[in-house]
């Protein structure tokens, strides 16, 4: 299988902040074009790549979806050359002081998120955990030098470049969820030379991090017969050690619980066993916190399964994940697809009750 790292690094090099995914979508489209029969863009600009079944007869449609957007920041006001900010997506303000960022104004400017020195604060706010209202971005340029380069609403993305770690791991911002986009891509590559007995729509969806609206609208237009939401989950790490966390690099997590169709959960588990792919069962007592939630309740309801790769330091500039788990996830999905035909599809749901 091809090394996905260069592609993943190129995905990480683009901001693609929620609602503004074009830059990353273009890279994905270029990579997917030779792998699919049709490439379309939804009204909200999610990217849909269709692999058709090798027959004109009606076949089940499977959707594999991963959101391509990333968290980021936005300029709120401009004050003496400094910008007040708001967040796009869930960012812990406490990880922001000292972060290098790119301000996407009329031109791209390097900047730095910082907090007020304690000496300029009153006792209630000094030395406390910073809130987003107390943080600002400094470009080092004066108001005069900035002129009209930046205006309210301009985006700010993490500028910390991604880097490879010892032994097959990668660290950087936006691995949530570009790692899953890479897994989808590996899956498309793996099924490239197969004649399929089902239709497959790979979807790189928008705005998961902000309002969770991309996957729902994509699912509405694709109307798949079953769907996979591919996302990241928590790896064990500092302060992260409960049942919601999984050893990093030791296999993908297969969701179990109301957001997952039991037939799909079971099928994925047995496929992993068969392929000798290590995996975890991720208990999802109520909801998955992924696009899978909206996908499942779209239109008249879609059997949905959540598949995740574990990742440390989610929603920081130094998210860390395993390249091996990306490959494993891609392979699992590919095998599910190549096994799927009208027969196996109807068998899948035959004896299962919800």
């Amino acid at each position, binding site marked *: 299988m091809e090394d996905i790292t260069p592609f993943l690094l190129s995905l990480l090099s683009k901001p693609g902040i929620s609602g503004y995914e074009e830059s990353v979508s273009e890279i994905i489209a270029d990579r997917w074009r030779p792998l699919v029969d049709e490439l379309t863009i939804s009204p909200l600009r999610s990217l849909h790549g269709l692999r058709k079944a090798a027959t004109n007869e009606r076949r089940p449609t499977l959707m594999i979806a991963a959101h391509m957007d990333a968290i980021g920041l936005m300029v709120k006001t401009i*004050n*003496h050359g*400094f910008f007040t900010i708001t967040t796009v997506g*869930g960012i*812990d303000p*406490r*990880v922001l*002081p*000292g972060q*290098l960022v790119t301000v996407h104004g009329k031109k791209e*400017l*390097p900047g*730095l998120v*910082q*907090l*007020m*020195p304690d*000496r*300029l*604060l*009153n006792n209630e706010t000094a*030395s406390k*955990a*910073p809130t987003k209202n*107390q943080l600002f971005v*400094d*470009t*080092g*340029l004066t108001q005069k*030098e900035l002129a009209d380069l930046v205006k309210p609403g301009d985006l700010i993305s993490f500028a910390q*470049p991604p*880097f*490879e*770690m*010892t*032994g*097959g*791991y990668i*660290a950087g911002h936006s691995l949530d969820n570009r790692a899953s986009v890479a897994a989808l891509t590996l899956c498309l590559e793996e099924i490239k030379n197969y004649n399929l007995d089902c239709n497959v729509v790979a979807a790189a969806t928008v705005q998961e991090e902000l309002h969770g609206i991309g996957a729902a609208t994509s699912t509405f237009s694709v109307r798949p017969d079953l769907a996979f939401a591919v996302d990241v989950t*928590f790896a*064990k*790490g*500092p*302060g*992260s050690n*409960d049942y*919601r966390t999984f*050893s*990093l*690099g030791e296999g993908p997590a297969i969701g179990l619980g109301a957001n997952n169709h039991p037939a799909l959960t079971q099928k994925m588990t047995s496929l992993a066993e068969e392929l000798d792919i290590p995996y975890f069962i991720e208990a999802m007592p109520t909801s998955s*916190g992924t696009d899978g939630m909206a996908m499942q309740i779209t239109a008249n309801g879609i059997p949905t399964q959540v598949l995740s790769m574990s990742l*440390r*330091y*989610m*929603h*920081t*500039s*130094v998210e*860390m994940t*395993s390249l091996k788990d990306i490959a494993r996830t891609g392979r699992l999905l590919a095998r599910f697809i190549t096994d799927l035909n009208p027969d196996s599809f109807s068998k899948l749901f035959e004896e299962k009750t919800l």
Partner: protein
Amino acid sequence: MSPQTKQVLRVGKAQLDLLEELTNANGVSGNEIEIREIIRKKVAPFADEIKVDGMGNLLVIKHAKKPNAIKVMLDAHMDEVGFMIVEEDGDGLYEFEHVGGGDERQFVSKPVSVGSQKLPGVIGSKPIHLASEDEMNAVISQQGMRIDLGPAGKGKAKRGDYAAYATKFIRSGDAIFAKALDNRLGCATLIELLKTAPEHIELLAAFTVQEEIGLRGAKVAAYDFYPQMAIAVDSTPAFDFERPDGNENTEYNCKLGGGPAIYIADRGTLSDPRLIRFLTQVAEENKINYQYRQPGGGGTDAGALHLTRGGIPSVSVSVPGRYAHTAVMLARISDWQDTLNLLQQALAAWTPEILSGDRA
């Protein structure tokens, strides 16, 4: 920089490349070897004497070409704040301590470079999704963070390994972003001044160690050199922000863009008034943008220098910089250039009369 400024030295590509090399290299207090080796190579072509003392200070001498020249010591510390690995936690995770002054709110979510092999790592903590509301309202404590080399980094680092921020130098117009501008700006300044040292001065340049943990290197360097006057060249924080409560900012320390900050008083030193007057006069005569650092806390190597042996008339001059002791500092090229020129002009204008009277 104002247009009428008489500039002798310019900060051009060569100077910025030098600063980039110095800031991208790691030299946490107690482990300054990488910085020392870079500087040693840079000064070798024009230094008359180079030695490393028992603490690790790099002592460089450029002899005067005239007899009975005054001995002037320039001091810049090489070390930077950083981290030390203190315990392995398994799974590529390591407990660490901070080396030097720092605010733990600045540590998390930064890439670091660990040990002499420069292993890539990150400082991580519990993600927002798993944090309770109470936790979200509290500062992320150092105890809750780990330096993480990834699962394959298990056993790769050992207790006592140093770690530095892995920030890379960035230039944006007149602004520069880098780690350790405190005090590689000072180191680069001394390197440039050594190149252009005037003939009537015995120039003693000390690139010192362990400033961030108590001015330790400067103390012994000054003992060795025992100069007739000393200038510590450092970086000082600019807190030049609008106060969030709208009141006037009366504690800005110094301002970015305000030129070199001449010290009058800090926690450790009352600068020699004759030297303050002299530097001010040089700046005025040469129309060099300058400012007085607000008297107050903080300190430089001058705190050690002026108390050495029988006492050494000392002063500090700093390049203003924002966000000292964090992963990324911010400074202005024009401030550095003004600092270089102030010091260059001061050395050139030096006469023994300046210190001939008694200290006020």
